[in-house]
């Protein structure tokens, strides 16, 4: 694939480009997961308690989406630069499945409950904890992917 080769070449010829992609990836997930965490903490009745979860979600949603785009674009670039290594890595596919679950969950169940007017506290807390668990698992998956190389 020409695109794959072009991206791979760019990233492999210049080590700093690869490092840059990684930094974009990290900065991106700090903003993305961090903004989701603000909503989750509120759903656990912690953190920004003066606002409603719905309000925090509305205020952070754009940040989350844009940051996720940066994460995924840089992720694709990193993947394309070493496809063969990622293909045989045992942890990487797990990370991708968990990421998919986290993304779907975030924009369906999580969003639904976060924007509810008066959600039962138990439901809010459970949904928030699952959200945090999924995203933290993606982070762990990322590190362990690297350690299995």
């Amino acid at each position, binding site marked *: 694939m020409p695109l794959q080769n072009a991206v791979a070449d760019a990233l492999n010829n210049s*080590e700093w480009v690869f*490092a840059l992609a*990684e*930094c974009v990836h*990290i*900065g991106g*997930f*700090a*903003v993305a*997961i*961090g*903004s*989701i*965490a*603000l909503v989750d*903490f509120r759903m656990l009745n*912690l*953190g*920004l*308690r*003066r*606002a409603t979860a719905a*309000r925090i979600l509305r*205020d*952070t949603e754009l*940040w989350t989406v844009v940051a996720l785009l940066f994460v995924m674009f840089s992720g694709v670039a990193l993947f394309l630069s070493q496809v063969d290594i990622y293909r045989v890595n045992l942890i990487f596919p797990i990370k991708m499945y968990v990421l998919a679950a986290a993304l779907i969950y975030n924009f369906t169940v999580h969003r639904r409950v976060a924007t509810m007017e008066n959600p039962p506290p138990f439901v809010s807390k459970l949904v928030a904890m699952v959200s*945090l668990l999924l*995203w*933290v698992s993606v*982070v*762990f998956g*990322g*590190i*362990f992917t*690297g*350690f299995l190389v």
Partner: protein
Amino acid sequence: MPTAHSIQSIDFLTAFSESVLAYPIVLSIHLTCIALFGGMILATDLRLLGVAFKGLTITEVVTSLRAWKRIGGTIMIAMGLLLAASEAEKYAPNPFFWTKMIILGLIGVHALIFRPIVYNKTEELDRSPVIPTKAKVAAILSLVLWTSMFVMGRLIAYWD
């Protein structure tokens, strides 16, 4: 390097760096702190810049996130020190590591300077019709310093 060698030779740390799982787990916790508490630092800084969470007062944002940022920061630094101590010989000559430590020191200086005039004076900031420049300077410096932290952190592995 005798000092670095004697640090990482402490039994507990030797076992730690030799354990296949311990190092990546600690590193993952370190990164998880960035993920969970990075958003809180960002929220505080953006509020001080008047760019986000305008529906909440500066006092509300700063005080409600304060404890969590401290907990997160403590865990993050503890995990970081554990990582460095267990690989002291590798980290000792690494310029990225030391740059990161200097930046961490600058973050401490940032706190010393801005806590008494910004972070502990949020009511005054809220009363002001326009957010005072000192608050915006604090926020921008905070964003620059923390971004530099994770960039340097990532570059540590690139040093040969």
